[in-house]
């Protein structure tokens, strides 16, 4: 055996064997960043492996019958389990009671406003986070830590906006479905339809969207009360909220 055959060089990245933990973590804003699967990083490595195995166990139905139901159901099940608070964990922003207001008029006579944390804005009215012009989705994901430290910006969206003029960018969730069909999180057309049907009185002139991955304290203590006052000044009767 020659000296050249000795491959035990500890710092040589070409010889590094990725651990299970590194593999799972790579989906969380890492080399395999995938916001559908970022929850894998929150699991114990062995649980992450079991989760991936459980998903792959559904492959027969997909391959043989094109039936994705078991895969979809299992994916949602494992995603929900991963986000569920751990037993005994301290709950942030836990409140024993909450404010509750009753409608002042029937739903069929009410002006309904829409607020979503989807990260939508209208073309030409980019909130330009951190002063960046035309920030891409990839850049937003790379700067998720900056977003989480900053107060969110509210984007105002005319509810007669053309779908082609809508944009969405958010570093905290997989935006593919929303980018494909904005009504997945911004159901302006559905609410307009329900107004035409007489189910609600009318849709407010403006909907609102923001990036929910933000400083929660700044949002709670300063920004959210300002937004509530804004909605009150617009004399809306009810508000539908869509978190992502």
């Amino acid at each position, binding site marked *: 055996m020659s000296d050249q055959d000795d491959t035990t060089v500890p710092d040589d990245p070409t010889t590094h064997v990725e651990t299970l933990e590194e593999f799972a973590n790579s989906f969380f804003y890492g080399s395999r960043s995938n916001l*559908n699967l970022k929850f894998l990083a929150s699991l114990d490595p062995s649980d992450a492996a079991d989760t991936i195995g459980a998903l792959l166990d559904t492959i027969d139905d997909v391959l043989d019958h094109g039936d994705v*139901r078991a895969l*979809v*159901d299992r994916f*949602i099940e494992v*995603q929900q389990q991963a*986000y*569920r*608070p751990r037993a005994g964990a301290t709950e*942030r*922003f*836990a*409140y*024993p*009671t*909450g*404010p*509750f*207001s*009753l*409608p002042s008029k029937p*739903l069929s006579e*009410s002006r*309904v406003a829409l*607020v979503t*944390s989807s990260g939508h804005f209208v073309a030409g009215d980019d909130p330009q986070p951190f002063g960046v012009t035309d920030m891409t989705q990839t850049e937003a994901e790379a700067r998720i830590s900056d977003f989480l430290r900053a107060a969110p910006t509210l984007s105002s969206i005319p509810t007669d906006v053309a779908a082609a003029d809508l944009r969405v960018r958010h570093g905290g*969730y997989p*935006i*593919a*479905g*929303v980018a*494909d069909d904005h*009504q*997945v999180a911004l*159901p302006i057309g*559905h*609410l307009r*339809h*329900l107004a035409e049907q007489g*189910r*609600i009185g009318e849709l407010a002139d403006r909907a609102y969207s*923001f990036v*929910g991955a933000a400083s*929660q304290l700044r*949002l709670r203590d300063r920004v959210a*009360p300002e*937004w*509530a*006052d804004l*909605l*009150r000044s617009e004399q*809306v*009767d*009810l*508000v*539908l*909220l*869509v*978190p*992502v």
Partner: protein
Amino acid sequence: MSVGHVQRAIEEVGIPTASVYIGAFAHVPRQMSLARALVTPHPLGRPLGAPGDTQRQLAVVDAALDLFEVDEPTIRDFPLPYRPAPTR
């Protein structure tokens, strides 16, 4: 949590609210004592249903509006399992 803060603030100024949470965040409306919430069995990033599934999206919005009929804080489940929409 972010929408929870906003929802609570809006209720504080006297405007009734209802929110739609996915199952992964089902603990949020309970933990934050939100006024009205509908919890769907949807994956992250598809809060009202699959893209292109207008029928389901509309049904979820309609179920959320039903919550304005209640006279006390309410968290309700939207029961039907999530299904992808056909490729458009």
